[in-house]
């Protein structure tokens, strides 16, 4: 079964995405959440953020989706994620762990807000 989840992220939350990642999918006991598709609407932009890439990951693991230059948007637009490949010895998936979106450093400037659309499945090991 494929699930859909929509998450709204305010400008204030975007500015602290490195310090405080936003949960997209809650932890589910004994299951792994795996996003098939990730789309982000960047809305209400008058000033772009700096170039921090948005990443989707199982909390604490290596990210597997990345949105390149999404926060550099100078106009309202929608962008789709690219897959990121794991290299040894990194791990990407864990059971019973939330899925989050984050940046490596807090974005600066910028005033847009985000709507994140995730299509995902749940599976057991």
């Amino acid at each position, binding site marked *: 079964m494929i699930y859909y989840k929509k998450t709204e992220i305010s400008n204030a939350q975007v500015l602290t995405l490195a310090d405080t990642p936003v949960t997209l999918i809650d932890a589910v006991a004994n299951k792994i959440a795996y996003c098939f598709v990730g789309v982000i609407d960047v809305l209400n932009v008058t000033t772009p953020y700096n170039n921090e890439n948005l990443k989707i990951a199982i909390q604490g693991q290596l990210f*597997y989706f990345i949105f390149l230059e999404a926060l550099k948007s100078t106009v309202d637009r929608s962008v789709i994620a690219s897959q990121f490949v794991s290299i040894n010895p990194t791990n990407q998936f864990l059971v019973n762990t939330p899925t989050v979106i984050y940046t490596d450093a807090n974005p600066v400037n910028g005033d847009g807000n985000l709507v994140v659309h995730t299509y995902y499945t749940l599976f057991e090991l």
Partner: protein
Amino acid sequence: MTEYVKITILSADVLTLNSSPVDLVAAPGVNKYIVPVRAIARIYNVTVDYDTAVDVYMQCSTANKRQMEAENILDSAVERIIAFDFQQPTSSIQTILIPNDKLVLTAAADPTNGDGDLDIHLWYEVLTIT
């Protein structure tokens, strides 16, 4: 409609992945193609990492180009779960989608040493093209 299948490959079969590829999805029938959507690989029960051919990939059994690859998954001495990556043709003579052909998991050569078991979680579509 997206189908899901989980295949467990024990270490003995991992060691022969090139000489004896493992069937993931049976041939779907005339004018039908298996199209992987997403896939995850998990290596576990591992104490020694494999050598030689540590990438595994899935492809139609008679194709000459892989569809998805889990890079370095066998180069793991600890349990690890990673996503497969899609592959693209790199020459004009490569074939990827073969009608009515099974989908297999294989490697560029038979891995050596190593003792981990491998689970493949695969989501795929069967498309009819006439």
